C-alpha cells in the first residue's frame, strides 16, 4: 500500500500572529517621503495625496500611505456646486472617514485635553496602504515625527501599551495618540493629538491643534484652510520630521500535518531504478534489509487527488529499523 490515512490528531490547524515593519522592503523607519506630481495634480489629488518611499522615476517605488484633509463643514475646499454650501472635497473626506470609522453620520471626531473634549473642524488623516499594514496595524508600534516650519517637532506615539482598557468603535479598536519618545513610550498624555484605528489602518490627527501649534504650518484660522494647502503642509511636516515607524500584523493560518512513517512502513520503492523489468529488487541486499530514500511527501484527499507537495532538503533514509516523523506546514 502506498497511501496511509491520517489519524484525527495528525492534522492540526494553527493561527499565528506575524508582525513585521509596515514599509516596503521591511524598512523599519521610513525617512524618505515622495509625492507623485501626476497624482497630486489629478482629480484624486483634490481628495488625497499618495506618499511614496522613493521618487516615481525609481524602480519598485510603492505607495506607503495616503494623506487627506477633512473638514466637517466643507470649508477650505472648492464647492462642488456654488449654490450648495458645505459640500466640498473636504466635507466628502470628513464624511467618508466618519462613516468608515464610526458607522454613522452623527458622530464627529473628538479629542481630549485633560478633561476637555475638543471637536475640531479640521482632521488630517493618514490611511496606510493595505498591502503595507496587511491585516491590521500592530498597536504600540507607531512613531511619527512631524515638524512645522517654526513650531517644535512633535513625536507622536499611540498609548496602546499603557492604556488599561481597549476602546472600540464601529471600525474596531481605537487608541489615543500622544506625545512620546518612541513607539509605545508616551511621555505626555495631557493633549491627545489624534487617534489610531489599527484595524482599518487609519490615523486621524487633530488638524486644528496641529495648526495652532504651528506643527502643520497653515496660516490663519480654520476657515482659511484650503485642501491643497492642508495636504501640502501636512506632507511637508511629515517629510521634514523624516521619521515614521509602524508595524503590520497579520494572522497566518497554517495546517500542520504530522507524517508518521512506522518502522515497518514505506520501506520499498516503485522507483524504476530500484527494480528490474520483472519487478525484482535491483540489489539483493535489499530483500531482507530494504532501504528507501524519502524525498517528497504528498497530501491527498479521499479521491487520491494530490492536493499539496512537500519536498525534503536531502533524502531521508528509511528502513525497518527507522521511523520517520515529519511535520508538514501548509499555509493558505
Amino acid at each position: 500500500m502506498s497511501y496511509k490515512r491520517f489519524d484525527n490528531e495528525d492534522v492540526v490547524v494553527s493561527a499565528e500572529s506575524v508582525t513585521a515593519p509596515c514599509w516596503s522592503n521591511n524598512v523599519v523607519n521610513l525617512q524618505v517621503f515622495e509625492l507623485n506630481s501626476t497624482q497630486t495634480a489629478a482629480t484624486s489629488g483634490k481628495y488625497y495625496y499618495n506618499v511614496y518611499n522613493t521618487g516615481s522615476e525609481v524602480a519598485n517605488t510603492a505607495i506607503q500611505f495616503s494623506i487627506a484633509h477633512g473638514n466637517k463643514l466643507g470649508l477650505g475646499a472648492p464647492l462642488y456646486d456654488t449654490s450648495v454650501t458645505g459640500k466640498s472635497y473636504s466635507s466628502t473626506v470628513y464624511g467618508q472617514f466618519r462613516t468608515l470609522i464610526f458607522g454613522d453620520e452623527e458622530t464627529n471626531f473628538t479629542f481630549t485635553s485633560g478633561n476637555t473634549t475638543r471637536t475640531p473642524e479640521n482632521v488630517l488623516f493618514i490611511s496606510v496602504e493595505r498591502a503595507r499594514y496587511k491585516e491590521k496595524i500592530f498597536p504600540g508600534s507607531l512613531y511619527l515625527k512631524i515638524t512645522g516650519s517654526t513650531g517644535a517637532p512633535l513625536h507622536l506615539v499611540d498609548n496602546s501599551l499603557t492604556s488599561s482598557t481597549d476602546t472600540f468603535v464601529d471600525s474596531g479598536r481605537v487608541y489615543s495618540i500622544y506625545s512620546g519618545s518612541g513607539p509605545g513610550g508616551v511621555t505626555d498624555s495631557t493633549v491627545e493629538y489624534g487617534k489610531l484605528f489599527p484595524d482599518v489602518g487609519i490615523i486621524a490627527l487633530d488638524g486644528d491643534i496641529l495648526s495652532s501649534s504651528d506643527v502643520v504650518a497653515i496660516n490663519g484660522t480654520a476657515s482659511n484652510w484650503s485642501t491643497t494647502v492642508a495636504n501640502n503642509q501636512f506632507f511637508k511636516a511629515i517629510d521634514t520630521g523624516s521619521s515614521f515607524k509602524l508595524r503590520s500584523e497579520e494572522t497566518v493560518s497554517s495546517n500542520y500535518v504530522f507524517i508518521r512513517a512506522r518502522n515497518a512502513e514505506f520501506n520499498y520503492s516503485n522507483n524504476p531504478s530500484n527494480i528490474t523489468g520483472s519487478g525484482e529488487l535491483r540489489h539483493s541486499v535489499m530483500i531482507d534489509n530494504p532501504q528507501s530514500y524519502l524525498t517528497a511527501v504528498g497530501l491527498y484527499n479521499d479521491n487520491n487527488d494530490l492536493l499539496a507537495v512537500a519536498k525534503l532538503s536531502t533524502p531521508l533514509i528509511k528502513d525497518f529499523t527507522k521511523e520517520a516523523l515529519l511535520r508538514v506546514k501548509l499555509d493558505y
Partner: protein
Amino acid sequence: MGYLNNGVVTVDAILTKKGRELLARGDGSFKITQFALSDDEIDYTLYNPSHPSGSQYYGQAIENMPLLEAFPDETKSLKYKLATLPRGTSKLPLLEAGYASIVLKQGASLAITPQTLNYLGATSTFESGGYTATIADVRVLSSFTGVGINTEEAETLNSTQTIGTNVSKTVIGTSINLRATTVNTLFGTRTKLQTTIQIIGRDSGARVTIPITINKVNN
C-alpha cells in the same frame, strides 16, 4: 554526555494545481485525509553494495544529494511512491497493461484492462481502487473514458469534456476505453500523431507509461 535529538523535521508544502482548483471549488473536496511518500529524484543504481568501506557507505552517493523544490504540477510529483510491503519481499508491484506501445488507426477503438503484478501476495490482480489513466494530449482521442469505478470523482472525471487544446485528461476505472480521433486537420502534413498514456494503480502506486501512435487513414 550528549543530548538526544528529539526534534521533528519540518517541511513546507505547496498546493498543487489540482489542490488550488479544489480549494477554489469550495465544495469540501479539498480535505486532506491521507498521505503518500515518494523517492522522486533518487537513482538506486547509485546504491553501491560493493562499497569497500562497508554497509554504512552503500548509500553514500544518495544520502547527501541536494533535492529540487516541489513542482506544482500534480502529475510531475510523487511519481515513485514508497510502498509498505512485508519484509522479505523480493518483487515489487508492477503494472501490466498488456501493451508496450499502442498503434491505432484513425477512428479505431481499444479497451485497456490493467492488472497489477506482484501485489498483495498475488501474481496478478485487479486493484479494487481501480486505475488512473492520463492521456498527455487529449486531442488525439475522440473519446477517453474509464469504466468500473463508480465513485463521484471517477464519474466527474469521466464526464469532463476537454476540447480543442493540447492538454491532458485523466479518467478513472478498472478498464480504460479509448478511441482514436477522426479529425484530419490535427495531422497537418504528418501521417501519424504521437502521445503517451500513463496508468497508475490507485492502491499500489505502480505505474506504467505507454506511447500511443495514431495513424492517419483518411485523406
